């Protein structure tokens, strides 16, 4: 963090902090998604019996389908959320308003 803000030596081009913030958020979302999928699909597909140290056929196939399904559900829920957002006043709840 402390390293940002200078000295990256890309000549005279200006860095727009807004762009960096957007990229940071995008990166955050993609890695979070990947980490969640890894975890959820491990739970769903790999029983903790550990009879060998590599994925067997069934586990591999399960993982493939699990990843596809998770990304599908992710998309479907983002659509539901958008629909809800358009329909109605305020719609999407989150953290309750925090300032006076």
């Amino acid at each position, binding site marked *: 963090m402390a390293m940002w803000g200078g000295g990256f030596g890309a000549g005279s081009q200006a860095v727009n902090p807004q762009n960096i913030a957007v990229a940071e958020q995008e990166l955050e979302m993609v890695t979070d998604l990947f980490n969640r999928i890894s975890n959820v699909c491990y739970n769903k597909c790999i029983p903790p019996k550990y009879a060998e140290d590599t994925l067997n056929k069934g586990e591999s196939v399960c993982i493939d389908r699990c990843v*596809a399904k998770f990304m599908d559900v992710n998309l479907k829920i983002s659509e539901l959320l958008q629909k809800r957002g358009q329909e109605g006043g305020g719609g999407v709840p989150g953290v309750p308003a925090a300032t*006076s």
Partner: protein
Amino acid sequence: MDFSRYNAAEQAQIQAMVEQKQMKDFLKMYQNLVERCFNDCVSDFSSKAVSTKEQTCITRCFGKILGASERVGERFSELNQQMMMGQQQ
């Protein structure tokens, strides 16, 4: 939360901070929602297509979570308000 004890410049910074935090929390809420509904609704991996039954479950799970989150928010705000009143007396 009451930030009226701070000066205007500080309040402006805090306001920006609150907005950024709300954005972040909204994203996290969304990600938790996806994970929860997937866990609760999907457990058949004999195909990579989401079935109609799973789809119905997910739509309902989505509704339940938003409903619960809204309701928790209402109660939480009320109780916080009451506690702050209590402190001022």
